[in-house]
């Protein structure tokens, strides 16, 4: 699939109309994510009650791939359990890095469009940043970066 098709099919829709856009006041969980290499800077805020994600919002400045990934993430996570969220984070990482079997892609539904990112290794981190930040929010880590110790996909292509 060409990049243009990936962008056309989902990414641009979510960029033009990002879902759950914003920051929750006094959230139970929050984290800030940055990708110093492309200047992406995002926030994930959540209200979690009895292990259920009652609300999740996403906001930030980023490229279209990161923005769409974040927007779609909120729609998948909202209303689900933290356990389900963690499983989805793992699956999404496997999907974008190409570690996932095709059959498993079904469970990811519309997110499977991001499998096309495999062919754009330099963009994997853009797609991963919201999920990486979500992990940090769940673990109350506060702030994460795509570089250094917290690199979500060590060894992937970056802009040095």
């Amino acid at each position, binding site marked *: 699939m*060409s*990049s*243009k098709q990936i*962008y*056309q099919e989902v990414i*641009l829709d979510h*960029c033009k109309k990002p879902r759950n856009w914003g920051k929750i006041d006094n959230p139970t969980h929050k984290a800030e994510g940055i990708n110093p*290499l*492309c*200047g*992406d800077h995002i926030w994930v805020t959540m209200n979690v009650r009895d292990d259920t994600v009652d609300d999740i919002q996403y906001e930030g400045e*980023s*490229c*279209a*791939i990161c923005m769409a990934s974040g927007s779609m993430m909120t729609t998948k996570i909202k209303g689900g359990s933290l356990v389900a969220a963690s499983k989805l984070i793992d699956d999404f990482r496997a999907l974008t890095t190409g570690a996932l079997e095709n059959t498993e892609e079904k469970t990811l539904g519309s997110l499977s469009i991001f499998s096309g990112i495999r062919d*754009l290794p*330099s*963009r994997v981190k*853009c797609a991963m940043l919201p999920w990486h930040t979500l992990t940090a929010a769940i673990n109350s880590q506060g702030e994460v970066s795509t570089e250094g110790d917290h690199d979500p996909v060590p060894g992937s292509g970056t*802009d*040095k």
Partner: protein
Amino acid sequence: MSQKQSFKKDIESARRDFPVLSQLINGCPLTYLDSGASAQMPQSVVERLNNYHAKEHANIHRGVYQLSERATQEYEDARKKISEFLNARKAEEIIFTRGTTNAINLVANSFGREFFKAGDEIIISYMEHHSNIVPWQMLCEQLGTKLKVVPISDVGELDMSVFGELLNERTKLVAITHVSNVLGTVNPVNEITAMAHDCGAKVLIDGAQSAPHMPVDVQDIDCDFYVFSGHKMCGPTGIGVLYAKMDLLNRMRPYEGGGDMILSVSFDKTLYAEVPAKFEAGTPPIAAAIGLGSAVDYLNNIGMSVIHEYEQSLTKYAMDSLREVSDLKFFGTSPTKSGVISFNVKGIHAHDMGTLLNDYGVAVRTGHHCAQPVMERYKVPATTRASLYLYNTRDDIDVLVESIRKVQKLFN
């Protein structure tokens, strides 16, 4: 017929000299606009490398047999070609390095560490590539030397009056890029060198973006050090050059120790070899050096002034064409700029632009271009950069502009 006309007539054939350019990317002809990162090699250089590997390879300076002597001769001939290319006084003033980065680190260690002390000052600028920032920062950490930074204006030119104010008797070195790899600005290196010398400071010029594109005369500039990379001027990777004035090279310490850089070794005392061997420890990238010599032949055949003029006219065409694109903002608009063109289009992140341009076979660089202080200066995380070389044509520019418009349409 003037030289210029004959080049223009030949431009189609110059492009055909580069086999890599005739391929399709995503079904579109490759439009290669990233020569600032790495230029392509003409067939003649590819063949020179092939021939060396197929028929001529041996270690140099070591064998008394014919093959080794021939390889040594070719390696030294390459040094001579490069010294003539830069108009150095003699071939020995040319030190082969792994590239620009390696050459700057050599100067920082062999010259800086030897002659600078705490409280001394090094002047660089806001438009330096990380490779002309970090080695000096590391040196400053070790020695307690101070780093001073010349600011840049909105159009992307050095603030020469601040430069004048920063210079003083503590200034030991001015390390400035000849041409900015993000903004395309051509810095007044003759003036910079004269001003620095008046204060007793030495001058290093980063020629990574100038040596490939314009005639360079190190004696005319009068700089003390001039560095560049082979892979940005039609040569292979893994080879670069440090030019330095002979008296400095004689006084500098070796950078690395090992074979080939010694006169004699004993556990009491090791004597170092003469310049340039003193700075070329170990087996050097012999093939790459010979390949670079062949790249110099290729460029000389066309003529550096011809290349410069051609690129200037192509740059003007590109700037004029891109200016027609709505919501496009340039970074670096100095009137005398070279063919390095940075821009962003409103509402489209540079990385999205780069990824989508690739769909049309257009190769541009996106990101911070190893020059984060420039990004900070213009308050952008990243830019899209198209950089031109002798094999680019107006058609390439037209494809770029057309493709940017298609990406814009996708986003609107």
